[in-house]
């Protein structure tokens, strides 16, 4: 069974600090997704990582993918309060019908303190 694990589950950090969220998955997958979710809201797509060694950056967030290690990281640089949210990683796995389903991690709840 494909599993996706994130750590930490909870992260409280000071503004201006750096931190990394880790996402491990249990079987081969070509793609990895990062999402942000604010309380009561839907998922906001942050990054889609399509190959080994992929690195993408948007503002204070940078995501990378190592398919050999089955590991993705989401690095936060100089955190600001607006980054407070829950972050999910996900991988996709094929379904019999020729489409895919997403397997999500349990999420990392990030709280940035002023």
């Amino acid at each position, binding site marked *: 069974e494909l599993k*996706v694990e994130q750590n930490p589950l909870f992260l409280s950090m000071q503004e201006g600090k750096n931190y990394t969220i880790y996402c491990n998955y249990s079987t081969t997958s070509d793609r990895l997704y990062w999402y942000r979710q604010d309380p*009561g809201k839907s*998922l906001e797509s942050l990054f889609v990582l399509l190959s080994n060694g992929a690195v993408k950056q948007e503002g204070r967030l940078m995501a990378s993918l190592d398919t050999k290690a089955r590991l993705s990281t989401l690095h936060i640089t100089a955190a600001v309060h607006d980054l407070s949210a829950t972050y999910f990683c996900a991988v996709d796995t094929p379904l019999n*019908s*020729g*489409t*895919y389903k*997403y397997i999500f991690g349990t*999420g990392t709840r990030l709280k940035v303190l002023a």
Partner: protein
Amino acid sequence: SQTIHQWPATLVQPVGSPLSLECTVEGTSNPNLYWYRQAAGRGLQLLFYSVGIGQISSEVPQNLSASRPQDRQFILSSKKLLLSDSGFYLCAWSPAGLSWEQYFGPGTRLTVT
């Protein structure tokens, strides 16, 4: 451009009552459609998916059912809700064929009391 709608946004229902959640997609034809559920404090889990009208596949055994009466309409139903059905329900779509990128709707928050 494509848009996805979910109705209602929030719902509070007593145990044993029926349920109907609706998802519609605009701006595309023959999309693949998905229902995911997020239980409190957890990640999302795929419940149902559909690759065409009337074609429904279930991923997990449960108290819910799904239907696709029209090309761009996906409905999640229950005859009798359980407390464990509470959660945040997200509909998603992907382009027809072998497409890996899914686009999520705004979600429905269901509380069963």
